[in-house]
């Protein structure tokens, strides 16, 4: 799943688009904080991980490579030591005949030269065709011993040379035996066998200068230790840790030893003998600098995360606070605009009412005035003064009404929303009443197609009148004289719908797209505030309804308002 999909699933990108309740700001704040922390901590974490991995790789190579070189070098020295000793034995076998070597004086002389020139030799013996040692020089009494049943004797007869594993001699001292076979005429053969001690191998291991926590030793491929170790036992003990896998080249592996330590094992397999040179180093010691760096990276990461969280919390809190303030200011401005627009509607309403009242008042005024004139003309009119007083009273009352209607024209007051159960058809009729006269004067065909038996709904009468008056006002502005405006109401399932349709100039697609934008108007300058539909949209949304507009340029417009079919008792209950 992509990151955006994941974030969407967590609803982190689903920002509430309307201000208002503190809960929305809390939700917004929470989501922004989580999102900002994620988008800052994830790259930081990735970078820390990549750096740490890269550094560990480099460091590991820097530590392991020299160790492998050391192991390889030491292995070569040991191989050379063994090969050199074997070559000496082989050379003596080639240079001297069986008879010369069978002479113990000769053998003794040769043995002394060998010890003197090469060192490491413990004894030297000549073994005949039948496996019997016919001549021997060394610290033991082994002359006449029969080796025909020994496995090494069969191996040297089949392969020509032999190097043994380490074994404990009669003096309980580790030795390595080596032998070469020589053929003589008649298909017969004899064997020259020498024993060497392991001091030189121990010295080679010591020359690796391993620290006190490390270990270096020789082990056979079946796991028998060939040299003493610090932690894993003595010569000929079984190496308690699994052997590393075979590798032609020096190699390393990481494992846990019998002491429970994490160790790095560097090793090299001998080519012509069954030995493996192993160097064991505890990982803790080896990677001490790495662990230090890892801790430092961890602390830097934690510090970075803490700073990010702190900054994100502070910054988001500040921004949300500013946003909330800005929203509240905007709401206040919109309320003010709406209020102004409401006042403007009330002004129009008042003007309509004043006109309707002023006309009959004018009739009363003129009739009373005429009566007064007639009475004044008749000097002998019975109760002349009384009638004059009466007509004056009528004229004065008319004057009072006149001042009231004039005041009404400038009358406007803030109306609070008032939700009540109302008959939508009644609201339509009341609203149409305000504009009937204008329709009459402009010869407009104002058609009411109101649905029968519509249920009452809980809504605000004043605000609905404002909405319908605005829709009618727009329709009046859109149609020519003698145009047609149709108002329909119907019960459409879970909503009541009111549509205002006109056959006026209609709107282009571009105008329709910007229909609800504040301060957008196609009317001439000074004739429209551009707030009518914006406020209408806001009112309908607040009343829980929705509004839709369809229009075709040159053919007309239909605005439909859908209002929820709930009663006041259902809203409050």
């Amino acid at each position: 799943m992509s990151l955006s999909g994941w974030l969407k699933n967590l609803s982190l990108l689903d920002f509430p688009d309307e201000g208002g309740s503190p809960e929305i700001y809390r939700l917004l704040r929470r989501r922004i904080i989580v999102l900002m922390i994620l988008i800052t901590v994830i790259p930081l974490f990735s970078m820390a991980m990549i750096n740490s991995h890269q550094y560990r790789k480099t460091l590991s190579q820097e530590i392991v490579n020299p160790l492998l070189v050391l192991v390889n070098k030491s292995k070569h020295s040991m191989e050379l030591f063994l090969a050199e000793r074997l070559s000496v034995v082989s050379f003596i076998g080639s240079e001297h005949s069986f008879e010369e070597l069978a002479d113990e004086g000769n053998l003794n002389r040769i043995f002394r030269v060998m010890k003197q020139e090469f060192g490491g030799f413990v004894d030297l013996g000549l073994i005949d065709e039948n496996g019997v040692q016919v001549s021997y020089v060394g610290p033991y009494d082994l002359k006449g011993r029969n080796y025909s049943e020994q496995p090494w004797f069969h191996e040297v007869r089949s392969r020509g040379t032999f190097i043994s594993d380490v074994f404990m001699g009669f003096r309980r001292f580790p030795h390595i035996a080596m032998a070469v076979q020589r053929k003589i005429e008649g298909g017969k053969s004899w064997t020259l066998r020498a024993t060497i001690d392991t001091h030189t191998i121990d010295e080679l291991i010591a020359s690796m200068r391993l620290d006190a926590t490390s270990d270096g030793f020789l082990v056979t491929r079946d796991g028998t230790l060939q040299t003493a170790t610090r932690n894993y036992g003595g010569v000929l003990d079984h190496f308690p840790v699994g052997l590393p896998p075979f590798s032609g080249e020096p190699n390393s592996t990481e494992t846990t030893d019998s002491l429970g330590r994490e160790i790095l094992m560097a090793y090299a397999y001998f080519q012509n003998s069954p030995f493996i040179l192993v160097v064991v180093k505890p990982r803790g010691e080896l990677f001490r600098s790495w662990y230090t760096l890892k801790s430092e990276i961890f602390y830097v990461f934690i510090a970075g995360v803490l700073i990010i969280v702190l900054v994100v919390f502070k910054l988001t809190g500040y921004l949300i606070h500013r946003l909330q303030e800005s929203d509240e200011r905007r709401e206040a401005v919109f309320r003010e605009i709406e209020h102004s627009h409401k006042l403007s509607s009330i002004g129009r309403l008042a003007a309509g009412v004043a006109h309707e009242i002023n006309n009959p008042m004018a009739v009363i005024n003129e009739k009373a005035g005429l009566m007064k004139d007639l009475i004044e003309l008749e000097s002998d009119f019975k109760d002349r003064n009384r009638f004059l007083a009466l007509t004056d009273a009528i004229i004065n009352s008319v004057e009072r009404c006149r001042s009231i209607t004039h005041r009404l024209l400038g009358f406007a007051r803030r109306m609070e929303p008032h939700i009540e159960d109302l008959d939508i058809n009644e609201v339509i009729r009341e609203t149409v009443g305000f504009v009937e006269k204008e329709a009459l004067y402009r010869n407009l065909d104002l058609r009411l197609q109101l649905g029968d038996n519509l249920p009452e709904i809980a809504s605000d009468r004043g605000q609905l009148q404002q909405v319908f008056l605005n829709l009618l006002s727009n329709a009046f502005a859109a149609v020519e004289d003698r145009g047609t405006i149709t108002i329909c109401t119907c019960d459409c399932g879970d909503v009541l719908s009111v549509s205002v349709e006109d056959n006026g100039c209609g709107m282009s697609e571009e105008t329709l797209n910007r229909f609800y934008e504040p301060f957008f108007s196609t009317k001439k300058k000074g004739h429209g505030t551009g707030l009518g539909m914006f406020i209408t949209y806001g009112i309908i949304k607040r009343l829980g309804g929705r509004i839709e507009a369809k229009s075709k340029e040159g053919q007309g417009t239909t605005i439909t308002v859908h209002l929820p079919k709930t009663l006041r008792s259902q809203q409050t209950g």
Partner: protein
Amino acid sequence: MEQIRVLLVDDEEEFTSALAERLNMRGIPTLTSSGGEEALKMIEACHPHVVLLDMMMPGLGGKEIQARIRLNHPDISVIFLTGHGATEFGPECNDYLIKPVNIGELIRKIQSISKKD
């Protein structure tokens, strides 16, 4: 000096009849008309000095009649009588009064406009 002739145009006949009689009683001959078409015919026939016009009437409205008068008889003065408060009467309107009107004020306006003309 020629006597001022007035034509009163309003769709409210109760109003026109009473006001016309009162003006007549005060020496201002006043004819009445209840609609725009009829008013235009009467203007052609008797050529009044002043036309008192209601703003909103079925058919031809006050503004439309005023425009025709301006076109055909620029010498005739027009005073609007309206129930509305602030209404745009246009630059060619001589004056206006809001209903209900005070008869003295109306006569003063008629006389002052006639003198100007």
